[in-house]
């Protein structure tokens, strides 16, 4: 079979061979338009697939590849490089518990234990990539530094940061996720003021500046 006009590298699904849902196609085409080269859309297109299907399904990857004009294995190789992409079912809710240096010093490992206990996720697997709760709804993973050591120990819950958390909070978080209630509103990172408190009198050099 010869390479048709506009056909990408070997393995690139031709557009007509793959049925792509209209919204997904429109979303990926909009993403492609932001960049000088269409391949730059790889990561945002994979996020679009993951939002739609809950994880990067083989069919979803094929659909994105068809719209982008790249091969599906290429896109899968990109997905496999990054920790936030799931190449297996990953539930409806994601809990990332930081176990890096500063959180470890303040109880990050125990917090991960508590989340595993509250969800029934396998602790060993959660510490090595992630594990699903018994009902398949909640994905728990021990994660590298999330950039919130001031909240230690902390977790990212459905893409929002919360901390500092106590082990007992894990059960409350899981209950809230299951019932659709708001998760620990008083522990949201976004609401924290500066550690040093409100502005005092500005330095004279700053006061006179533009």
């Amino acid at each position, binding site marked *: 079979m010869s390479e048709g006009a506009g056909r990408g590298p070997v393995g690139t699904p031709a557009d007509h061979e793959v049925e792509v849902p209209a919204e997904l196609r429109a979303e990926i085409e909009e993403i492609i338009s*932001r*960049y*000088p*080269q269409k*391949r*730059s*859309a*790889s*990561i*945002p297109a*994979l*996020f679009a697939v993951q939002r739609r299907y809950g994880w990067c399904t083989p069919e979803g990857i094929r659909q994105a590849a068809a719209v982008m004009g790249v091969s599906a294995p290429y896109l899968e*190789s*990109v997905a496999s*490089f*990054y*920790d*936030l*992409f799931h190449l297996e079912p990953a539930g409806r809710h994601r809990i*990332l518990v930081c176990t*890096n*240096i*500063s959180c*470890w*010093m*303040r109880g990050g490992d125990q917090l991960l234990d508590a989340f595993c206990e509250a969800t029934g996720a396998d602790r060993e697997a959660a510490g090595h990539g992630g594990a699903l709760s018994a009902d398949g709804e909640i994905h728990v993973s021990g*994660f*590298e*530094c*999330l*950039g*919130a*050591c*001031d909240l*230690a120990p902390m977790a*990212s819950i459905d*893409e*929002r*940061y919360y901390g500092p958390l106590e082990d007992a909070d894990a059960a409350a978080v899981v209950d809230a996720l299951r019932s659709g209630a708001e998760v620990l509103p008083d522990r949201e*990172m*976004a609401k924290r*003021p*500066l*550690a*040093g408190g*409100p*502005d*005092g*009198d*500005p*330095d004279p*050099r*700053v006061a006179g*500046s*533009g």
Partner: protein
Amino acid sequence: MPESLETRVLFRHIDEPGLCRLETYERYGGYTALKRAFRDCEPGELVSEFEASGLRGRGGAGFSMGKKASFLPHGDMAKYLCCNADESEPGTFKDRELMLKNPHGLVEGVAIGAMAAGATRAFIYIRGEYAEIADRLDAAVAEAYDAGYLGEDVLGTKVDVDIVVHRGAGAYICGEETALLDSLEGKRGNPRLKPPFPAIQGLYDGPTLINNVETLMNLPNVVNNGPDWFKGFGTEQSTGTKVVSVSGCVRRPGNYEIELGIPSRDIIYGLAGGPPEGRELKAWYPGGSSSPVLGPEELDLPYSFEALAEAGSMLGSGAIIVADDTVSIPEMALRTARFYRHESCGKCTPCREGTNWTVKMLERVVRGEATPMDLDIIASVQENIIGHCLCVLGDAMAMPVSSMVRRWRHEFEETIARAREVAPAPLEPGPAAVVSGAGA
């Protein structure tokens, strides 16, 4: 009221409600620097001002921002600016606070940096975990387009600047500037061989300026007040203020903006409150998890690029992690090494294998299966990583780990001895043992 140890320039007004919206940002003088830069300045003039200010990169390497910008060739080719917002160095969370609370401050800094570099397209590469912050940046970028601060013909000056917020997807290595470029081009985030340097051949093979969030957020202040004003803060070689992230065993972890050159003790004790009641500081990383670890003896060092380098460590990303006397140094070394093993992209052998074997040996130390000779092997592995890879990820493990083994060797030896006493674990079984075990 005692004089504050903080000097808030970037942090001034940052907790004002609504600062993330254009209207409020403008009320505090936002976008005046952009107007001045675009209307009244030539790109070369701006680059000279940045160089004269002494502003050094706030992401880790500490290279002169203006000098880096001056390396880009002149001419009409497509040039790019990439803002490195992939903040992933353990212990570092300064850009998070800056971007979340003042996204327009970054948008203005990126636009000014792009204009100075002659770049019409700019990208903010933000780590995927910072999803809520990326949303805020998207909203700020949209407001800036509507106000005419971005897009075609900015403020009628015939200069175009476009900004795209690009989310990463969880890979520490993408904070390395050439891996960031590959990732932004839609590939796996592997570092590139240098040279060519990104200033000559970067994103899409075009000349590219790559700067950290905090570096770019300083630009509006330099434009508004001039390089001499900026040099009025800090030391001769470390000008300006710095947002320092303090975490670990301290009473008030958080971000503090200080004038560069104040004693490190003032940051750790004066601002962050030092270790909890009854505990003593044992060790501290001065500039993120990849900086060689220091002890109590170095607490009076000025917090500046030059003083920390002279002491054999580095200011890095400006992240201080404090360990008190309850923390085991071998376990801290293991935790550090595990991170780099996980994040090694695997391209270069010394890093891929060196991080893996360092973790395995440190696990033996902690489990009591090591001998003191293993400590020499750990040290030699670190020596064989440093300088032998495309990027410095491997070095970033080797530097702190070797500093810990060297300085706290007695503690490693005690850990080995104690673990052997508690549970005299056998050495890992050799092939013979496995065979006989299988037959039993």
